C-alpha cells in the first residue's frame, strides 16, 4: 500500500465544490453525505442535510447560472456540525421575503427549495440582492 504524504492524512476541515452541471449536484449530495457520515449524524439528519444541499445546489445552478458549494466542519465545545454555503453570481433575488414563502417560484419548480431547505437545517442565512448574486448558508449540528 502506498504511503500518503502527511498532509493528506490530516482530514481537511473545509473545502469547495463546483456547481456547474446537473452531475455536480449529484457529486455535491454525495460529498455532503460522506461528511455527515464522518460526523456521525443520524440517518435522518444525514438525509435532511443532503436533501437541503440538493435543493440549494440546484437553485444555484438553475437560477444562479452555476456557482460553488463551500463546506466547513464546525466544532463548538463538544458539538460537531456541518456548514454549507452556496454562492452564485446570478441575477439575485429582488424580494427575499417572497422567495422564502412556500410555493413561490421564479422558474418552473415547486417553490419548495428555499423554504423547504430552511426547515431541514438548524441554521439558515440568505444574502441576495438583484444583480448581485445569491449566497445561502446552512448548518446542521449533531
Amino acid at each position, binding site marked *: 500500500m502506498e504511503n500518503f504524504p502527511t498532509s493528506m492524512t490530516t482530514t481537511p476541515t473545509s473545502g469547495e465544490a463546483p456547481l456547474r452541471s*446537473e*452531475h455536480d*449536484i*449529484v457529486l455535491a*449530495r*454525495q460529498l455532503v*453525505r460522506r461528511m455527515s457520515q464522518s460526523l456521525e449524524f443520524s*440517518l*435522518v439528519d*444525514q*438525509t*435532511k442535510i*443532503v*436533501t437541503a444541499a*440538493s*435543493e440549494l445546489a*440546484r437553485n444555484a445552478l438553475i437560477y444562479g447560472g452555476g456557482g460553488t458549494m463551500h463546506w466547513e466542519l464546525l466544532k463548538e465545545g463538544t458539538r460537531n456540525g456541518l456548514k454549507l454555503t452556496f454562492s452564485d453570481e446570478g441575477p439575485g433575488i429582488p424580494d427575499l421575503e417572497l422567495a422564502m414563502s*412556500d410555493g413561490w417560484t421564479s422558474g418552473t*419548480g*415547486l417553490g*419548495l*427549495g428555499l*423554504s*423547504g*431547505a430552511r*426547515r*431541514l437545517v438548524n441554521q439558515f442565512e440568505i444574502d441576495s440582492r438583484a444583480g448581485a448574486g445569491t449566497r445561502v448558508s446552512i448548518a446542521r449540528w449533531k
Partner: protein
Amino acid sequence: MERIPVLRMGNFLLVTIQVDMHDQLALQLQDDLTNAIERNGAKGVLIDISALEMVDSFIGRMLSDISAMGRILDCATVLVGMQPAVAITLVELGLSLPGIATALNVERGMSLLRGKLSNLDDHDANER
C-alpha cells in the same frame, strides 16, 4: 446514454431506481415510463425506491408527475419501499406526494395493483 430500466411483467411495469439520479435521468425515466405504458397497454406501474437515499423536490415532483400521467393513460402507479428517513425528510421539506399510492414493499405494492385491477374487472363485468 444512461437509463433506468423499465421491466414488463404481464400487465404491469416494474421500475427499480438504484442510482443517485441527476435531473436529466429523472426526466428520461418519466418519458420512458409513459411511452412504455402506452406501448404495452400497461395497467399498473410499480416503482421501487428502496435504494433511494434521498428524494428532493425535483425527484418528488417527477414521481408525482409519473403517477398523474399514468392515471390519464388509465394506468395505476404504486410507489414502494421508501426509507423512513426519506419519508421524514420529504414531509418536512413540504412534499407529501398527494395522489400517489404507496406501499411498504414490493409484495404489498403488487397486491395493491392486482386489487385495483380486479376491482376494475368486476366493474366491467357488472356493466356488461
